[in-house]
């Protein structure tokens, strides 16, 4: 027996060695491009430094954080990000669910719709932003023209100039870009629900509405939850859509836009790093909470 065990052990040891060897490039690269920059960002947040190289650092303790907490623009960017995230994620979930339910039924041309769903997803965020910016143009934009023709509005709106409307505009654009992604994921979830359940329900005389509330929604819940969480994480980091459509305007400035503005436009690397660190903490807390929630759900 002995030689076999020895041989087995040596194979296991060899596999462990090979395993680490295979992981090494990935570990080294990730240390270099994520752990180091993150550590550097956190470190810099305790210093006063301009964007001139070589960096001249002056230790200021928590000064940057104190300034951050008393800057109304920062708090506005947090509020904007929360409003943007809540409205766009809610809308795209509802719209995504409607699209998914529709595509899940049997009809001719289903394949076409499924392909069409990938179009907004595949379009680069910057392109989607420019496209919506053009469509929402106050004088020559097609959206105003269409809404007027349908008599939904009585005068053209200046979507990208009037405070509240700018937020509506960026949410509209974001919902168009991401609702199809939501629909794809929910569709996959719908397809995993056993058909027998619906047959049994029909035999028992359940109406379509009852089937939806009693079967579809409860069984879709885990997928819905994961999709919601991922979209929320994404929306909290929003940069492209708002930056291209509205720049750094106060009405829609997001946390990421505020951070980059401090860092590059105002060339304040210490303060900018404090902003970055604060955003990291906010998202880390959100992630920790959701992992805990998911664990409860899965159990």
């Amino acid at each position, binding site marked *: 027996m002995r030689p076999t065990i020895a041989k087995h052990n040596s194979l296991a040891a060899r596999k462990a060695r090979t395993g680490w060897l295979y992981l090494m490039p990935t570990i080294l690269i990730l240390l270099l491009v994520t752990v180091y920059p*993150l550590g550097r960002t956190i470190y810099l947040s305790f210093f006063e430094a301009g964007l001139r190289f070589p960096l001249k650092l002056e230790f200021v303790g928590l000064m940057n954080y104190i300034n951050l907490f008393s800057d109304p623009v920062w708090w506005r960017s947090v509020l904007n990000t929360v409003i943007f995230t809540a409205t766009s994620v809610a809308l795209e979930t509802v719209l995504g669910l409607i699209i998914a339910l529709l595509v899940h039924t049997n009809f001719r041309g289903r394949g076409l719709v499924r392909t069409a769903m990938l179009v907004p997803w595949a379009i680069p965020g910057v392109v989607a932003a420019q496209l919506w910016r053009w469509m929402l143009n106050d004088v020559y934009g097609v959206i105003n023209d269409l809404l007027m023709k349908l008599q939904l509005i009585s005068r053209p709106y200046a979507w990208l100039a009037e405070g509240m409307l700018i937020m509506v505009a960026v949410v509209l654009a974001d919902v168009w870009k991401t609702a199809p992604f939501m629909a*794809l994921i929910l569709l996959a979830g719908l397809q995993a629900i056993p058909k027998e359940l619906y047959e049994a329900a029909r035999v028992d005389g359940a109406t379509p509405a009852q089937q939806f509330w009693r079967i579809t929604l409860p069984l879709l819940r885990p997928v819905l939850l994961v999709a919601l969480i991922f979209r929320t994480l994404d929306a909290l980091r929003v940069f492209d859509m708002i930056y291209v459509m509205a720049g750094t305007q106060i009405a829609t400035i997001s946390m990421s836009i505020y951070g980059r503005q401090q860092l590059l436009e105002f060339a304040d690397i210490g303060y900018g790093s404090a902003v970055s660190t604060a955003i990291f903490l906010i998202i880390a807390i959100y992630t920790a909470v959701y992992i805990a929630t998911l664990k409860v759900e899965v159990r």
Partner: protein
Amino acid sequence: MNLLYRALLYAGVGLILVYLLFPFYWAIISSLKTPTELFKTPIDYYPPNFRWQNYVEVFQAQPFGRYLLNSAVVAGTTTLLSLLIGSFAAYALGRFQFRGRSVVYYATLAVTMFPQISLLSGMFILLRTLGLYNNLLGLVLAYMVFSLPFTVWLLTSFVRDIPWELEEAAYVDGASPTQTLFRVMLPLMAPGMVTAGLLTFIHAWNEFLFALTFTIDDKARTVPVAIATFSGVSSFELPWHLIMAASVIVTIPLLVLVLIFQQRIVAGLTAGAVKG
């Protein structure tokens, strides 16, 4: 009742198709109009003349060809590098049993949650230090932040689904782990690699924040940055015909990929959500 139901269904489907596709239709229409036709009311829903000249002008007004090349090089290199490095890691994480494996796996997953903005100043300094600021290779390095963990994660889930038997046979025949990886596993991982490669390529091709921050001129500027910073004669009159032409050009390769590899892309996108 049944007829009414079908009618409502098709009306709904039609509405959704218009919603999904109209904006892209509008980009194409706008890219074929003259500036005069763009800035006039009432709006034409179909171009009076097809002005293909716009597509030539995009390349003349600025080095758009160079931007396209930059984007292709960055996205292509990012994808190939992630697949190469990621497939080794995925094989180790998906197959080998050793201490510390799950720590590495979850750490890799955690990295995908990092907000890009939190790495911005550190990455800026890293690239300056390495002399890779305003450099395509620097962008590739920065893109490893999202492409590598994603590739590792997706390929690991593929490796776990591959049956043990073939590999077992190779080991019994005395093959080393590396020989097994190359001769047995990589061919079996090919579909997963196509999916991971496609999603990584699309993500890198579309990326904006890093590209905007870590490039300064034409040498390394990518298409999304060029499209976002298009400027006209005056800031009030943007050259929308050119912006739209550029937008259509940069989107076409993606649409071709989507049409050809639709199944693979959907499989990759839904892998995480449905498996949990």
